[in-house]
């Protein structure tokens, strides 16, 4: 219930009393209502759902999160056994209960 994707604000105008931006989603541009994120400026990234910007993407936080993710699992000592276990798990057929409603 929440398909929202990140895009870059390229232009801001006013249309019909609304603050509207041309937002670029990886090469595809859409007009988006920016009224809910008044601090957005050209060059900012924002998350957009059904034609409305809902939040500015905090780029510093995004970079930090990515950096944290990259660190994860890199310093494992016992990589060998875990690797086997993971390989086994990854090679296993799909969950018997993909809906997760199996009771144990």
């Amino acid at each position, binding site marked *: 219930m*929440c*398909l929202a994707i990140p895009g870059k604000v390229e232009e801001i105008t006013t249309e019909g009393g609304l603050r509207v931006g*041309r937002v670029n*989603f*990886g*090469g*595809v*541009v859409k007009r988006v209502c920016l009224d809910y994120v008044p601090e957005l400026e050209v060059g900012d990234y924002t998350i957009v759902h059904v034609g409305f910007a809902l939040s500015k993407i905090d780029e510093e936080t995004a970079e930090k999160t990515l950096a944290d993710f990259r660190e994860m699992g890199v310093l494992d000592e016992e990589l060998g056994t875990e690797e086997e276990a993971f390989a086994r798990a*990854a090679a296993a057929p*799909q969950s018997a209960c993909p809906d997760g409603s199996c009771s144990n």
Partner: protein
Amino acid sequence: MAEEVKTGSPVVQKDTPDFSNWSCPLPLADYPTIVMGHGGGGKLGNELVEHLFLPAFRNPALENLGDAAVLDLPAGRVAMSTDSFVVQPLFFPGGSIGELAVNGTVNDLSVSGAEPKYLSTSFILEEGFPLAQLAAIVDDMAKAAATAGVKIVTGDTKVVERGHGDGCYINTAGIGVLRPGIQVGPHRAQAGDAILVSGTIGDHGMAIMSVREGLEFESQIRSDCAALNGLIADVLEAAGGAVHAMRDPTRGGLASTLNEIAQSSGVGMEIDEPSLPVRPEVQSACELLGLDPVYVANEGKVVFFVAPEAAEQVLEVLHAHALGREAARIGRVTAEHPRMLVARTAMGANRVIPIQIGEQLPRIC
């Protein structure tokens, strides 16, 4: 004639066609839109043939204007295919209904292993349809036919009352000659076969979406609409019997085609998602609307099922052709999980890709 398509507008404004090249343009110029009489077989209908279809499609078989076209065919087996085209909008980035109508049938014949030769075309036009648009469509068809090396040898026009058609529907039927020694079919894919695709997926469907009312967006995405007979000829010449099956993944996209052939051949298929060629803007457009590129239509791509030892060679041949530059090996046919298409995701996990039920719709969820 202006070819520019305004992105974001579902109907393209085309200039009035240049009538000066036509033998006697005046009668048509009197009627800027289609009227019921144009389908009646009388004077108005004849004028359409004389002044629009004939000059565009020019060939002796057509010019005889008989009730049927009389054709010479070499001895051997003949393939025949038909398809109807009802796309909206009629003109979209990278193509039009006219090009689709010609290339669609050319491609159906080609993937059956035949060399396409002759096409028929039938129009069902809505009363009030602008003549300028019909002329543009016909011009597109003529150009597509010339590029594909096929002739449009017979046709028909009917007109329906205003409100009873979407402007213009086109049916084309085609005849092709089967290449000797080539046996391809949807039931012929075998375990171990390599699955190759001739280029990027999802271009056509997303080009249409980009100009569809209510969903439109700005992008550089263009339909990949193209005649594939040349490309396929190159592949068959190089690899011959090593090509077991071919299909163009049109409606329903790559996923539907792979599922259909898996069903027909009674085999399973595995594809590697990271290896699927997708243009970045097509991927972005799919993200925007919540669509999966594997289900999006293509109009200028082929999927090949090839004996594994010939796969590299076929890829080379594809890469050497203008329409196959981004060809890629995307997976293999397997005896496991028969009739099921499984994809290995970028995460290294597996997901089953089922056959699509109905049209893929944009989602918010």
